[in-house]
């Protein structure tokens, strides 16, 4: 059975977050850590949203986390699960949960990152149950 896939709109690549999308092409999930206060943050910024230091550094995330929350959209032609995943590094990111039966998704479920192609842009990080 062929499953119809939702077309993923391409993310706009800003200079501030170009490294993030270049790494995505390599299959790596990057997050920002502040050298001044030690906190990770997401979405990535050049200036730390916690202490306002400009000493923020890119780090490769372990790519593992758990589902903080999700919602399966049932009213569009192709149902999909939007979610926030809390990474092992402590920050939560918006994503989709893929490679599973949408009706089996649960909050607290362990997931790992998988990159999916976007429509004419870099691949985007989604998550699949471990």
């Amino acid at each position: 059975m062929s499953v119809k896939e939702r077309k993923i709109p391409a993310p706009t690549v800003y200079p501030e977050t170009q490294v993030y999308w270049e790494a995505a092409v390599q299959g790596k999930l990057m997050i920002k850590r502040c050298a001044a206060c030690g906190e990770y943050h997401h979405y990535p910024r050049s200036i730390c949203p916690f202490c306002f230091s400009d000493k923020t550094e890119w780090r490769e995330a372990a790519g593992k986390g758990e589902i903080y929350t999700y919602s399966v959209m049932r009213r569009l032609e192709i149902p999909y699960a939007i979610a926030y995943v809390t990474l092992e590094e402590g920050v939560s990111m918006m994503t989709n949960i893929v490679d599973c039966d949408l009706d089996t998704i649960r909050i607290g479920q362990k997931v790992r990152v998988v990159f999916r192609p976007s429509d004419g842009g870099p691949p985007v990080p989604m998550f699949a149950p471990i």
Partner: protein
Amino acid sequence: MSIKGKAYIAGVYEHPIRRADDKSIPQLHAEVAKGVLADAGLSKNDVDGYFCASDAPGLGPINMVDYLGLKVRHVDSTDIGGSSYVMHVGHAAEAIAAGKCNVALITLAGRPKADGMATGTAPRIFGLTPDLPFEFPFGPVTVNMYGMAAMRHMHQYGTTSEQLAWIRVAASHHAQHNPHAVMRDVVTVEEVVNSPMISDPLHRLDCCVISDGGGAIIVTRPEIAKSLKRPLVKVLGAGEAPKGQMGGKLDLTTTAAAWSGPAAFEEAGVKPADIQYASIYDSFTITVLLQLEDLGFCKKGEGGKFVSDGNLISGVGKLPFNTDGGGLCNNHPSNRGGLTKVVEAVRQLRNEAHPKVQVKNCALALAHGTGGSIGTRHGGATLIMERE
């Protein structure tokens, strides 16, 4: 400086239209402006302050002041989504207290219904925001964002779909008495939870209506309000707050009301238990539940129990809410429900609500709005008003 007692709400108006195929958005703004001036007993030339948000086309006040033929010395088009107009009342009171204007006009209008807008299921983009690339690819739309907040609340606190449904049930009990309401049928908990699932766990009847129209508010100096023939509604306190994802340290079970509410209560010098009527933003049932907790009407996590068994129904429960039927049943003009929240609160304080839903001797009321998306970033605005 406080705005307590420095300004009065002298006029309110809700457009009776719910579908405006043959009217433009500016025209609707003009009609609600005309309507509110008639309600207050003022004329266009009395207006010296104008407030609007991004539902007004073009550069907001620049286009609208010209179109309406106003001559004003103070304008404000701060936009925090559907809660903007609740906040504008506070901003108008500030401007009046500072001597920047005497009669402030606030207008809202839109026609998403006539334009066939897929309000709940279409993506919304507000320019090249920094968050856009990290969210847009994943299909965030209005309803699944609120769905994620509801899922988390259910997970953390055991809230059920049946409890959320009670919010719709209460709104429908009120809407049956409102001849202008889009949906006037009284519904049951079963009907809500058996309506089609849109995005887990929100059913169709957990969502507000889509409607055209608008509304307007007039805020004046105390002396002007007292010279008019309308019941006196005094602004006691206001609070506003934006809330976002906090750098990734997410908490989707708390809204900006947790910050704007206490600020408004402190300025007003009253407590949640003193409030006799509350207009609570109801884009979705979950929106109401979160705000009731954050405003202090019940403890965090106990909203489900609080709204059950008709506790929000006027004449039945402890906290009558949205007695016009709210956004869930009556009206959500321009996909922005904040202005009509203030309108119904003022009707209650003036003893002008429908007799079947009028709160007896209503002297203290609250209106709260949530604009934007509780799943990502939103603004909260709280307003406390007193009948003098």
